[in-house]
């Protein structure tokens, strides 16, 4: 955020000052449209709208989080248009990045809300603790719970960024000592977009913003409020190792022969088949790689409760073992029941006529 754009400046004007002309904007729009699974004819409209777009206020609240989501969004080796879009939104409040602190920061928040009432986007990362009045995460003595309620009231829409904000994430993992929940469990009266991932793919956020800036509304969402364009398919559906899965070629251990051949990691616990995200197609670090390509199975980090889903290295085919103790108890119950039944049967047979018909014994 090294330049504070003029309130009146459009995105097109701002980009022009940086040497990014209309043609580049159109190319960007084409790429964005494709990424958003929009028909190609939409691209010129998107480009035109982007050029005309005015600054959109974004208030970013960080709750019970690790700051990984913010870090990933900043991770960029050279400025890209995505990065520029982030510049173009007026990120009016973000505790990690803003210069102000303490009372000054509080005032900034207050002013931003007042100035953009009903129009600002509220971006949230981190889960919200609810136990014991939400005392487990406070900013300036105020609980996240209370802050969320206040700031959400005048927002136009809410972006729940990262699995913690979307579904509760890691703090929600058993036994969830802070009573952590996602945004959608607390806010029911505002449009919410969930952008899960631990962390989420940066291009997803920029795609959602580009759509919002271009069309003034949120993109199509699935039943978990995730943008369909990025979360409609599973990792499995787009994985480059899929052919190995189909042929039954699996790595059995890390760094074994199969692993070195790049075979499917299903056996090593890959949750690709049940994980919805864009990692396999969009990839990370400007399309460099993603976990499976690096030799580790998908851990399903964009799915709700992924931390409690039975182990990262247990395959989807495997279940949780009962344990020998429980199995022994079950066997004992069975043996006792069977013995009782046999004894009842024997006593019934005892007092019948004395001539035994022989019971064959091998």
């Amino acid at each position, binding site marked *: 955020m090294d330049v504070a754009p003029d309130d009146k400046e459009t995105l097109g004007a701002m980009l022009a000052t940086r040497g990014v002309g209309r043609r580049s904007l159109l190319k960007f729009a084409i790429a964005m449209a494709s990424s958003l699974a929009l028909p190609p004819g939409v691209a010129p409209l998107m480009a035109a709208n982007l050029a005309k777009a005015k600054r959109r206020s974004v208030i970013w609240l960080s709750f019970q989080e690790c700051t990984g989501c913010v870090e990933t969004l900043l991770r960029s080796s050279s400025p890209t248009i995505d990065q520029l879009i982030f510049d173009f939104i007026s990120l009016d409040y973000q505790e990690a990045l803003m210069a102000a602190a303490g009372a000054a920061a509080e005032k900034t928040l207050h002013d931003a809300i007042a100035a953009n009432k009903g129009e600002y986007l509220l971006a949230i990362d981190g889960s919200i603790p609810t136990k014991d009045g939400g005392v487990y995460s406070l900013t300036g003595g105020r609980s996240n719970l209370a802050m969320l309620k206040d700031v959400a009231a005048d927002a136009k829409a809410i972006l729940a960024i990262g699995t913690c904000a979307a579904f509760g994430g890691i703090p929600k993992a058993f036994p969830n000592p802070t009573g952590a929940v996602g945004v959608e469990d607390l806010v029911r009266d505002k449009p919410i977009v969930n952008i899960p991932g631990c962390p989420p793919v940066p291009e997803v956020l920029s795609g959602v913003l580009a759509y919002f800036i271009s069309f003034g509304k949120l993109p199509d969402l699935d039943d978990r409020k995730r943008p369909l364009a990025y979360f409609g398919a599973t990792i499995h559906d787009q994985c480059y190792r899929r052919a190995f899965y189909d042929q039954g070629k699996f790595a059995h251990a890390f760094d074994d022969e199969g692993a070195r051949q790049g075979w499917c990691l299903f056996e090593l616990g890959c949750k690709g088949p049940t994980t919805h995200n864009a990692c396999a197609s969009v990839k990370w670090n400007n399309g460099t790689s993603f976990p499976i390509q690096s030799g580790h199975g998908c851990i399903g980090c964009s799915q709700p409760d992924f931390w409690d889903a039975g182990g990262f290295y247990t395959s989807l085919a495997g279940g949780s073992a009962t344990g020998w103790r429980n199995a022994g108890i079950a066997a004992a119950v*069975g043996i006792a029941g069977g013995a009782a039944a046999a004894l009842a049967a024997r006593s019934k047979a005892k007092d019948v006529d004395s001539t035994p018909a*022989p019971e064959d014994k091998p």
Partner: protein
Amino acid sequence: MTLLEFARGPAWQASVLILIAGVAWRLVAMILLRRRPQFAAPRHGLPQRIGGGARTILTRFMPRRAFWPRIAVSVVLSATFHIGLGVIIFGGAPHILVIRQFTGLSWPSLPKGVIVIVSGVTLASMIALLLRRLNHPVLRLLSTADDYLSWLLVFLPVLTGMLLSGETVGGYGNLLALHILSVELMVIWLPFGKLMHAGLVFAGRGLMGMNFSRKGAAT
């Protein structure tokens, strides 16, 4: 908790425990009944009787020539079904994984396309067997609710497994949950109905083989 987590977690545990308890109960209730001693002089000694038992287990898979003409259809359909089921269970990669998880044993799997085809053949043989059971006068007389329930509890896993392998119909997560749940239903019912024949067949043939070998009678 999602359906899949339920299927892989508490449902799996409960069904396995019920299986263990039920099988133990059913077997012990029979084993502990009063046995009467056999005093007639045997024709063959114990080693030959044990061999007779083992042999009978194998020979009853293939009926005698004298019986073959009248039961050929039944034998072919049944063999197709059982062999198909065996190929699916022991050749399907995810099944081998489950076995590996609990025993450490594993072996190469078949490509999922093969599994899909074998599943289709197995389903077809099951439908043929069901139609036969519904139409043949002897089977209509003998059949009970258990016969039809057991059929359904095996049909559903094979069907959902085939769809899961084919990966063209239905979402993976939901299909996997349904597949695992359908297997669990079958596992829960197994100790109480005719599906128990999976184990009893060896006991029955073995005992008959030993008993009849004792007499030198035909097995």
